[in-house]
């Protein structure tokens, strides 16, 4: 038993409470976009995979914070990456909104499956046309890097746990454990949002899709602006 054991529970509960507040605001638009992209298909598996990816990233970041014993070294190293991910998330939500509203076709944005198209366009094609839910795992891995206040707080605790560790491995495991606990705590809120946005419970979806597409465009632009300013 280590001195960080009670902290695991604290951060599990923190993740749960933060999930229904902060995460719904930050990750909510992305989760809603993913659900709408599924267009009535089963949302549970894709969202579980998305959350699994997000939590794996949290765990790796926690482990690194634990090994380094420093929050600032870790975050200063990934700042540019986080900025890029925030802009990427904005572009993703924006394009999904534009495409879902029928404002522009995927083909017009990227070209219709042109083999010379960029990695981004290929990835977006794959996501938008995906039949396998597995594509949501790498998406979660990437979007787990989104800048987020409560994630930072959990990483600060992970770094502190690492500072008190006897070995690098112990520091890694302590930090990883804390971030795992925090991440698992956030899952219920995002699953609820994803399920509600799946729209399986609404009879007339046409108008909802139209309204949602406008909101996604707005939120996407907001994310891009936040990313540029970050």
């Amino acid at each position: 038993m280590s001195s960080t054991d009670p902290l695991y529970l604290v951060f599990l509960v923190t993740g749960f409470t933060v999930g229904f507040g902060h995460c719904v605001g930050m990750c909510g638009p992305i989760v809603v976009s993913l659900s709408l992209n599924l267009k009535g298909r089963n949302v549970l598996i894709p969202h579980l995979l998305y959350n699994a990816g997000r939590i794996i990233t949290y765990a790796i970041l926690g482990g690194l914070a634990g090994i380094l014993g420093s929050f600032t070294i870790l975050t200063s190293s990934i700042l540019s990456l986080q900025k890029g991910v925030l802009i990427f998330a904005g572009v993703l939500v924006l394009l999904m909104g534009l495409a879902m509203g029928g404002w522009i076709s995927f083909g017009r944005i990227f070209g219709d499956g042109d083999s010379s198209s960029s990695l981004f366009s290929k990835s977006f094609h794959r996501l938008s046309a995906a039949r396998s839910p597995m594509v949501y795992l790498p998406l979660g891995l990437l979007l787990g890097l989104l800048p987020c206040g409560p994630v930072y707080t959990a990483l600060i605790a992970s770094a502190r746990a690492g500072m008190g560790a006897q070995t690098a491995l112990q520091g890694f495991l302590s930090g990883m454990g804390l971030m795992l606990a925090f991440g698992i705590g956030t899952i219920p809120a995002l699953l609820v949002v994803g399920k509600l946005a799946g729209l399986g419970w609404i009879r007339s979806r046409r108008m909802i899709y139209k309204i949602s597409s406008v909101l996604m465009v707005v939120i996407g632009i907001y994310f891009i602006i936040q990313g540029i300013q970050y």
Partner: protein
Amino acid sequence: MLEGFWISARKILITVIACLLMVMNQGALRGAIAADPTSENLINCSIQQGPCTKDLRGMTVTLDIQPKPVTAMKDLKFQVTLSGEKKTAAPYIDLSMRGMNMGPNRVELRPVKDNVYEGQGIIARCPSGRRTWIATVTLPEVGKVEFIFDVIY
């Protein structure tokens, strides 16, 4: 063809209106936060200018954070100085943001000399742009006092 042009123009117009609404919404949100009596206008500590002092049950509690300017996502040194007759165990500081659960972030303090306590901590950055933080200094068996201040991003 002309009909198609007008349909596209209408869609673009709706996008522009949506963007304008978003910008207006941002302005309104910032205005609401500024008007919120539980937020920025409750700032009671100019930590960027120097230490802040509050009274607590016959004691004075002084908080200072170094280095200046006090910046989020940096290693900071928190110093609490007490004065008064009462003796207390080492205080600690909880960092939080009003109206937004940022998770538990406690700075443990250790005595460095008589009635002076220091500890290392970090103030996280909120991507929403909000920068008003609360440092709640707890003196065990005495009470708590809040220092509300802005940090630099």
